[in-house]
């Protein structure tokens, strides 16, 4: 297959809705006609250049102000679909409260890409290595999917179904992301290993846990880049839940987590390495979240 990354050779109809309703109308109209949503461009245009993705319609939603926001209140954190990664990274609440998400965004690519890209795009691209997915799953975040007839909420954990696959229908738009208010005595962390700092993850992990009376009351441990989608290691979570954080418990958690993941060997790393390193990362990430949870 021949490519030319200097240009976009493929021609398409370019649509620029100014309101959400307009966008949903267009999606409805073109749902069977190979339409793609353009928000940041850092995934869509790359795919058009490198794997000859050839949409007939591109619906640029960047100008829709209704979905360009980030707010925080008693309901939690809400992020619009076209809000850039940089905007999220700069939010005081995200930095102060949602450490894992903050760290995940900080770990992504570089400034220019984060000025362009969005969390919604990162999720819809549905890479098993997507950096924002593990923290969002750990927090129990959900996405709002809208079409002309209404909207539905889907947990991020269920949203992603495989490499490049989500539950979104061709007439739906991911409009918003809802992350619940985090309980007292909770802490979260995100870690990632790449070949260089600005890289796609060889492996990444997010941990969110609640610590009470020096016991782990609840926890979620989510890995990326070790299976077809980001995955929770529920067996490891079970081991940790209800326990004090001793090195013995941590070792068991790590062993279990390493068993539960299903990594492959690819150009970025080996299955063997990912199994090994998963243990180190779980220990470090759980410790970090534990410290942050305080008591």
């Amino acid at each position: 297959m021949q490519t030319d990354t200097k240009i976009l050779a493929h021609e398409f109809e370019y649509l620029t809705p100014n309101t959400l309703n307009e966008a949903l109308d267009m999606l409805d109209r073109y749902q069977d006609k190979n339409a793609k949503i353009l928000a940041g461009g850092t995934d869509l245009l790359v795919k058009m250049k490198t794997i000859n993705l050839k949409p007939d319609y591109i619906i640029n939603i960047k100008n829709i102000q209704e979905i360009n926001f980030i707010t925080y209140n008693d309901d939690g954190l809400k992020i619009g679909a076209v809000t850039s990664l940089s905007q999220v990274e700069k939010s005081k609440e995200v930095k102060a409260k949602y450490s894992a998400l903050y760290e995940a965004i900080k770990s992504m690519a570089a400034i220019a890409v984060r000025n362009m890209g969005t969390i919604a795009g990162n999720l819809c691209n549905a890479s098993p290595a997507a950096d924002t997915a593990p923290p969002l799953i750990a927090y129990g975040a959900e996405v709002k999917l809208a079409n002309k007839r209404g909207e539905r909420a889907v947990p991020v954990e269920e949203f992603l179904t495989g490499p490049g696959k989500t539950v979104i229908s061709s007439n739906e738009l991911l409009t918003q992301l809802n992350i619940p208010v985090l309980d007292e005595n909770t802490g979260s962390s995100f870690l990632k290993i790449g070949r260089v700092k600005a890289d796609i993850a060889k492996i990444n992990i997010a941990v969110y846990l609640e610590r009470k009376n020096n016991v782990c009351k609840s926890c979620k441990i989510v890995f990326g880049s070790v299976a077809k989608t980001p995955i929770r290691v529920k067996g490891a979570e079970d081991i940790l839940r209800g326990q004090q954080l001793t090195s013995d418990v941590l070792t068991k958690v790590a062993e279990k987590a390493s068993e539960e993941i299903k990594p492959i060997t690819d150009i970025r790393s080996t299955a063997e390495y990912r199994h090994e390193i998963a243990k180190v990362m779980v220990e470090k990430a759980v410790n970090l979240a534990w410290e942050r949870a305080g008591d």
Partner: protein
Amino acid sequence: MKKAEIEFTVNGKKRTLFVKTNELLINVLRNDLNLTGTKYACGIGECGACTVLLEGRPVLSCLTLAVDVNGKNITTIEGISKDGFDPVQKSFLKNAAVQCGFCTPGMILMAKSLLKENPNPTEDEIRDYLRGNICRCTGYTQIIKAVKECANNHNQDK
């Protein structure tokens, strides 16, 4: 395919152009406006050579549709100093932060943007901010030094 009319400001100058929807900003700048300081080096957002400022913030022109900048404000390397040299440009020269020069426009625009956001960055902050810009000649050290020196000078001015 029909061309669409776009009107945007480049380096302070209003420009009206007719472009196809699949034309990329980088090529419109380089081919139509002869602003060849914006460089192609990877085309997929992995190297930073095509960085321009969109509304003052760095973006990658190789992943930006030209139609998408309609009504917006673009600054390229050619537009960062009206007369003489910008302090960042001077510092790059002084610190030999330039070798082949192909990454230099992107690096300078990133440095400008960093210093605007954070006038006194630490060395680690500079390194982190520039991590998406590949330089194959310098090993980065003199580039980082050049930016750091601007930061310090900036403080002295205050």
